[in-house]
């Protein structure tokens, strides 16, 4: 199983796909036609860069929890390494999503930080993963760190899932498509934006996974040097 994953991680085709999708995203994202809207104006282009961060973060968090479970079942440190690095990359994506969202919110909602379930969810996610890394750093023994980190990672993922998926449905939100706001499909009548948005999601997510796999390989090399 592990060797199979490594083969996929080393394959070139999905990295090429990520680059192609991102080049397409940047060209069409900045030059493509977008519907002219009051208030949102051209900032609607942020859809390709802000919402996609969120999708990338969720994907990486899923990888984290899957590999945490895999570690607890198999006891292979490689699985824990993938879990840890995907959590780190999820933090990067959460930060990027937060910054792009704050810039966008400042122009459209009039303030960089509003009491919105999505914002609270991202803040909670970042706090939880910060705690995850604090916990990991507090333990010196490698195997113990992997086991305890995995346990906390699984528990934290479920709590966070409850927080970001269920709570927003029960509160009002400023985000499109929630709390009685029209969704983005209302804005995008000719589906021009969809043709950029979906490739952008795929491109950014693959980029996140690629960065994560590079970090994993780097860590393995460091380990080899350290042990030599």
């Amino acid at each position: 199983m592990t060797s199979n994953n490594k083969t996929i991680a080393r394959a070139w085709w999905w990295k090429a796909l990520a680059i192609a999708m991102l080049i397409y995203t940047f060209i069409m994202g900045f030059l493509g036609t977008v519907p002219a809207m009051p208030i949102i104006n051209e900032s609607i282009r942020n859809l390709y860069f802000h919402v996609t961060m969120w999708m990338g973060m969720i994907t990486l968090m899923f990888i984290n929890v899957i590999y945490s479970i895999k570690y607890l079942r198999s006891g292979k440190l490689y699985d824990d390494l993938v879990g840890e690095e995907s959590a780190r990359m999820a933090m990067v994506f959460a930060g990027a999503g937060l910054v792009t969202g704050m810039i966008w919110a400042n122009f459209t909602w009039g303030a960089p930080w509003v009491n919105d379930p999505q914002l609270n969810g991202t803040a909670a996610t970042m706090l939880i993963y910060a705690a995850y890394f604090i916990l990991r750093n507090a333990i010196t023994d490698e195997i113990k760190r992997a086991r305890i980190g995995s346990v906390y990672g699984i528990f934290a993922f479920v709590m966070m899932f409850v927080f970001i998926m269920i709570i927003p449905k029960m509160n009002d939100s400023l985000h499109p498509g929630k709390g009685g706001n029209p969704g983005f499909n209302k804005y995008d009548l000719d589906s021009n934006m969809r043709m950029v948005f979906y490739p952008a999601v795929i491109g950014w997510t693959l980029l996140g996974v690629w960065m994560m796999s590079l970090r994993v390989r780097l860590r393995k090399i460091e380990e080899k040097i350290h042990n030599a």
Partner: protein
Amino acid sequence: MKLGTQVLTLIKLEAKLEWKNRQAITSLLVYSLASIYISYLSFRQVLDPVTWNALFWIIMLFAGTNAIAKSFLQESKGLQFFYYSMLPPQAVILSKIFYNILLLSILGGINFFIYSMIFQSPVQNNEQYLIGLVLGSIGLSSTLTLVAGIVSKANNNAALVAILGFPLLFPLLLIIMRFTGNAVSGYSWAINQSWCGLLLLLNGIIIILSYLLFPYLWKE
């Protein structure tokens, strides 16, 4: 059935040990009383029901963290080894969780009584509020017990319980504040029952997760 009797025996043992050395319980009570009194000195009076409710749950959060953080720390290595060799880990975590639920519910009841006296209580539906108190204590205790278990295997630093536990408690605290907030406003049961159901669901998820994950912490 066997698990049930083991859990019951452990809870009784825990209660006996706690009663033998009342210092821990007394210090908990003093801690919450002092928190309430500090709030009184700084707020004087709380007119807004939302603030009243939020302040109460913040006091409960800190009291609960303080109470539960030590639940694995006070045991000697020898006793832990004895448990480890004699009992399944599920019995250990369930007994700790249920004992802490009992402890926190009682502590919460006392806190609620004193808090309502010191700050005039705006609660219109006391039964609903007390149900919320018990449900909130279940959620707080089960989450913090697992976190205390995690920390006991990490480096036994009690401050780590707060760092690890608080972000995990966000969903629970939001739901519990909404539920008890509705009780304060005196909403009917029909409006509030969906929040109650959500709380029960969340508590169930937390306890099941603790049950499943704790054995991985326990083996050394």
